[in-house]
């Protein structure tokens, strides 16, 4: 509950969702926050909003509200027909209650700010927590009964995230939604509106929200079977990797950082450069693999098979990276990209999320690959549904 509180003024100024936030979080949005003009001419904008409501701001009549209005109309008809002041009193009280309801509803939404958090990475077929963070910026009054209509592309219907209890003044809370993306690709998660029936349920008040977050959904992980090829278990296959590690080969020199062992200090270099320099050794790794994904539409005519390909490639890439044996990745005719860090793998998975079958525009063959580099994983359709992975032309795995 104790989070950094949003500045409502800034939240208003931010207006639409910011895509630059870290950790998949958008900017804050408040109930009555609107375009920048509002700040300087708030009252004028407010008055105009009564005539032309902002997009998404709506008031909808509920069943109890309909009953109250019908009763009020009935009493009004009887009151005017009979000039009976008791009926006028009842009518006045009903009208005042409607006004009171509107006032409390306005107060309930006042200084309420929220933002959307869609923490990456997202994978197809896996559950992910999407949260709406809600902050009540009021100084005294709590907020009740608010819910958010939230939707993601591909989802059949919008989900409702309710605030079940009381949100105290200056308090914050998170409302969680479990999202399971159906397929890889670009996914848009949007808070459609904030709504409430508070206080009496006469009217459903909808406040349009512009919070939207676009995220990439990586392919779903798949089960695959490795074939017992020699490359998987190559003996003595320890080789030097081009990244820092605990190997015996010197990779580079770098400046001393707190925590470095004194044994690593390169005294000669330190004397020459007049600052402490330490040795950085190269990591040792097993025999690495290069992963080459060809997306020719001729080979992958069936969409589901292509999806399986993407999933297999993603799964194998991650498995190999975890084992420290993924050297590089490549798409079609592009140059191989070395994978040294997590970030490289993530970029590859990002591309995998969006890749589509392409029309072949280059000449390639397995022979060419084998000439250029050894331990190259390539993929081919296996019948109508499956996918086979080859290592240098030898069957290595199936899915």
């Amino acid at each position, binding site marked *: 509950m104790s989070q*950094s509180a949003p*500045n409502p003024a800034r939240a208003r100024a931010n207006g639409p969702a910011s895509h630059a936030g870290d950790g998949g979080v958008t900017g804050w949005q408040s109930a009555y926050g609107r375009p920048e003009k509002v700040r300087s001419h708030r009252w004028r904008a407010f008055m105009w909003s009564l005539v032309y409501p902002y997009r998404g701001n709506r008031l909808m009549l509920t069943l*109890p509200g309909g009953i109250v209005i019908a009763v009020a109309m009935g*009493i009004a008809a009887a009151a005017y027909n009979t000039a009976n002041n008791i009926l*006028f009193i009842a009518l006045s009280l009903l009208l*005042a209650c409607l006004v009171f309801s509107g006032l409390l509803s306005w107060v309930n939404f006042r200084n309420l700010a929220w933002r959307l958090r869609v923490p990456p990475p997202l994978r197809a077929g896996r559950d992910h927590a999407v949260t709406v963070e809600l902050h009540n*910026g009021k100084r005294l009054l709590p907020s009740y009964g608010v819910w958010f209509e939230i939707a993601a592309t591909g989802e059949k219907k919008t989900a409702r995230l309710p605030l079940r209890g009381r949100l105290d003044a200056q308090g914050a809370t998170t409302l969680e939604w479990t999202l399971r993306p159906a397929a890889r690709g670009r996914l848009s998660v949007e808070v459609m509106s904030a709504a409430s029936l508070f*206080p009496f349920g006469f009217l459903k008040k909808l406040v349009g929200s512009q919070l939207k977050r676009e995220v990439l959904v990586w392919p779903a992980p798949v089960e695959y079977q490795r074939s017992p090829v020699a490359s998987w278990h190559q003996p003595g296959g320890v080789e030097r990797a081009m990244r820092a590690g605990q190997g015996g080969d010197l990779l580079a020199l770098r400046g001393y950082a707190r925590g470095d062992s004194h044994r690593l200090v390169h005294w000669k270099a330190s004397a020459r450069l007049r600052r402490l320099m330490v040795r950085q050794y190269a990591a040792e790794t097993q025999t690495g693999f290069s992963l080459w994904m060809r997306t020719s539409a001729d080979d992958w005519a069936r969409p589901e098979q292509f999806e399986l390909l993407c999933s297999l490639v993603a799964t194998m890439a991650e498995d190999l990276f975890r084992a420290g044996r993924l050297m590089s990745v490549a798409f079609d005719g592009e140059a191989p990209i070395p994978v040294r860090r997590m970030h490289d793998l993530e970029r590859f998975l990002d591309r995998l999320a969006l890749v589509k079958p392409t029309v072949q525009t280059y000449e390639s063959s397995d022979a060419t690959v084998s000439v250029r580099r050894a331990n190259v994983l390539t993929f081919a359709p296996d019948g109508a549904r499956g996918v086979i992975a080859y290592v240098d032309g030898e069957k290595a795995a199936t899915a």
Partner: protein
Amino acid sequence: MSMEKKRPQLNLTELYQLKWILGGVLAMLSAWTVLYMDVEAWLWLALTTAVTPVVMRWPVLTLYVPRWAHRLAFPLFVALFAADYYLNREPLPAMIRLAMMLVLYRAVTPRKRRDDLQLIILGLFLVVVAGVLSVSLVFAVQIVVFTGCALLFLMVINLIDSAETGQPAVEFSASAPPAWMHVEWMRLARRLHEATDWRVALLSSGLFGGVVALSALLFFALPRFDIGNSFFLDNMITKQSKTGFSENVRFGDVTDIQQDTSVALRVEVSDRRAIPAELYWRMLVLDVYENGLFSVSTELADQMRQQKRRVARILGSSRPRAGDAVWTFYLEPSTTRYLPMLGSFFQTNFSGGPQDYAINDELRMLRLEKVPAKMFAYQVDGMRIEDELGPVEVVQSRDVMPLYRDVPDDIGNRERPPARMPDFLKLSLEPADLAKVTEWSRELATHPGGAKMFARVACDWLATRHTYALQMKLEAGDGDPLVRWMNSNTPGHCELFAGAFTLLARGAGYPARMVTGFHGGSWNEGGNHLSVRNSDAHAWCEIYDTASLRWVRVDPTPGAALPGQVAAKETTEAVLARIQDRSWNARLDAVRMFWYRRIVDFNQNSQAELARDAKSAIESYARGVKAVLNERLKTIGEWLSRPWDVARFAAWIFVVGAAFGLVLGWRYYGRVLWLRWRSGMTRKGADPVRREAGRWLRKLEMLGGAKEGGERAAVRAELERLRYGPRQSWPSPQGAFRRAKRACAAKPANG
């Protein structure tokens, strides 16, 4: 992390319990409308009042009602309603009883959302109908309380809906009741107390007060159109008038009314000088006496001519005079259909719109078609206060309904008997009784002087034989009870005196009749009106004086002034002082009068008058403010234009300097002293300095704690010390707060 203690929240079980209790309260509030609605629904009222608290305490009892009973409930209610209507032929009471049944059913069975809404609607129906039928001040209190409870009820329902969103519905039964059905009142009250922020509760109460104020404003501001119609609910219920004020009066009926001390009539007079020393509110003239029963003869009843057209304004039989007072009457519901008057009048206006009525100018009687089921207001202009009824000043041509005797008999072309004049000399007594009365009358009629003298003598005679008593017991015996009383020395009440005098006068050959109504009243200084209570019900007589050709009022009850007796002249102030009522009831009555005068009787004219009053008040206030301002400016101008010398200049410098010093002193030291003083007074944990520091810390937090610079961090450290540190380590609070203010006002360096 905040150090403030977090208030607990009510969980779903407690919300359900609260909803259940509020529903029960609403049901009882609705049912209690029967108390002032005057509808026979006591059984349902008693059941609701007895059963609802029980199921409020033990909701689990509601689960023991078998399913078939629920299925049978609504057909049973419909059958009961149909039978009720068939037997009584009154739709509104039947509907009220049906609503009561449904309210009771909803109060004692588990409710879903739609059932809760039904309960509110039924309750609102009962409250509004009760208000319309009774026009009682209780309605105002009840509808405000009902609205408050209903809004709270709806809010709790809404909170429950929010808490339950997306959760599956749980089935329950008597063997497995839901947790909320085990209500522990004390625990719930404690939890409510813990969960409620008194500031929010206070604000909510204030807002609800605002709702009431807004509704009052709307009430006065809603445009009124005079469509001129009568309310349909009036026609759906029949009311009986009090027996003493009906066409048949048995001995004891009027005195029965006298036991009731509630107000029957309120009268507002535009000019209090018009109030006479003796107030006799005439209502009904009775001319027949038989077997202990006074009644209206057919002949006399025929003289009350029913008018063809419903009107809101009736022209009377007296001429208007300059300076005539306007009398506004507010007659309580179910009192009578005969409108109390002091005498003839120039015109009468009905506030409730056009009415069916009957009138007799000679008798000074005005009768409505039905007994008013609600408060009935009428305004009388040019009312004469008549001790003696003479011939009418103006003979009005009236559009009367034909009597059945005036309509030819179509069957056999028979002639109807012609309408006869009432006989005010008739004595319908047994011979023995008649002989006694005649003998007494002869004895009394020996004095010369006509009817007035006879009246005095007869009153004296009665006063010597009988004393006044509200309660009396007449010994058993043969013959007419009134004659037996006259023959005894038993004390009696006004009806007996009036009845006896009528018999004596008739026996002596003087036409006489009995009149019922009210005598007296009390002056309510707060409400500026006369209150006439049911205990003021009275019976007196009128005797016809052949000399003056007038009917002379005679009140034979001991203590009343006799005809021709000249009472000491009293000023209006003396009269009002004599009848003034300063009791608490009178103060409450003033409120009720305000309710009738300003709320119930509010109409298009009142609205225009109110608008005019508001306008003139605003204009007058603006003029006053302007005058004060002008005066002040003039004074300042004069003061400035006076020659300046060293002393004046020094005085001026001193005043300005003192003011400046005061402001600065308060800014730098006053607040500190005040905070210190408060911190010494308040309990541990509620130190105002710590609270103020917490406030500034929250402000800084709002401005974004992550990106703050060095100065702001230092301020924060100081504030944290004030907020959480030991008192000995505090920096100067005022300085810290000043720096915090500066830090909050300054723009952050990184924008």
